[in-house]
């Protein structure tokens, strides 16, 4: 099985930790979000075929920083999470303002039960 590490961080450490990984030659693989007991965000990075995940959990109303100033291509992942889950992400280098996807409902991966 592939070696993979999950490192729990606080949202405030995100930019610092990401910058350290970038400087260490890590490639950003994906950003994933899970809506269970809050928004669990996992930032996945790879170096020499080993996966390292930075993870933190936030409430939906907490705003977090974009890492697009460090990994410019993260804008797609961040727009997706913003649009599907309603996570508030600020300073995305290319912000589609919830128009990346042509979807008919708001935040379909974070809907109230009565809306579903």
């Amino acid at each position, binding site marked *: *099985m*592939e070696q*993979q590490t999950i490192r729990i961080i606080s949202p405030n450490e995100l930019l610092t930790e990401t910058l350290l990984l970038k400087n260490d030659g890590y*490639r*950003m*693989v*994906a950003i*994933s*979000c*899970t*809506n*269970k007991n809050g928004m669990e965000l*996992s930032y*996945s990075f790879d170096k020499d*075929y080993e*996966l390292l*995940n930075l993870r933190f959990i936030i409430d939906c109303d907490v705003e977090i920083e974009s890492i697009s100033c460090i*990994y*410019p*291509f993260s*804008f*797609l992942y961040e727009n997706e999470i913003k649009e599907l889950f309603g996570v508030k992400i600020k300073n995305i280098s*290319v912000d*589609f303002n919830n*128009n*990346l*996807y*042509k*979807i008919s409902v708001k935040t*379909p*991966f974070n809907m109230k039960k009565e809306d579903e």
Partner: protein
Amino acid sequence: MGNRTVIPFGPQHPVLPEPIHLDLVLEDEVVVEAIPRIGYIHRGLERLVEKKDFQQYTYVAERICGICSFMHGMGYCMTIESIMDVKIPERAGFLRTMWAELSRLHSHLLWLGLLADAFGFESLFMHSWRIREQILDIFEQTTGGRVIFSVCEIGGVKKDINTEILQKISEIMINVEKEVTEIANVFLNDSSVKYRTKGVGVLSKQDAFDLGAVGPMARASGIDLDMRKLGYAAYGKLKFEPIIETDGDSYARTSVRIREIFQSIDLVKQCITLMPEGDIKVKVTGNPNGEYFTRIEQPRGEVVYYAKANGSKFLDRLRVRTPTFANIPALLETLKGCDLADVPILILTIDPCISCTER
């Protein structure tokens, strides 16, 4: 500065089999910026894990895309098997690897046909797809399906292949190799084809890394990145090295895929030679509890599956990061500075799969 114009490209365009939209900012005939828009057919398949149990979801995973159907099923099964600590039989690993490489083979041949069609070489397009038919026939004979196979399940595979059919596949591979050699010569050496691909849409190694490119897109720019080196299924027992080119242009991306066709033929042959006897599946009991990230190499590059399970039949979360999604920023970079006439070819050279992206 020339006249600036914004031209909408897609979502419907003759070169695009699936919808993606680009706002192309042009100065005269040269693209200076491209802004993407996706989501025209977003299906929300990831959320279906809340309604289909983890066994049933294998069928949904296979339907994420019609080209990498088998690999989606395999990647999903591998993720659940890792969470449940299920070890599949060795023969199942070899069978999975063989179907995966046959899938890569047909996908690259399909792409070569589309590329030929895009630059107006109709007979080359037809030859590419004619050769591909032989691979689809193998799928039909071994699984019963030509597009969606439904042979992968959690714990192994559902169908075995007998020695006689394996021998027949081996013979077909020899014929496919011969025929691909003929069309490869045209793709790589014909002056009119080279004129459309050589030096067009260059992506440097640094840009490919900085923009998160994966698969042939990254390897054509000199990045040694191939998830098969993780050794999943039977890859750890086969001999191969990632195919790398360094020019980073459309020609290099074509060359990588053509060389990967020959590599896949070789891997299929190795699977047939080394295929061990034995069971093809193990019984899986209980429900998954835990989480895992799986990465495999699809024809278009690295795909990531993340599953989080809670011990019930239904997963809390399934996340699929597809290679086309990862390659969009690199595509936008290659479009900068290109002629408007080259845009369709450049979009094709990332081998976009919008169906995967709109999972």
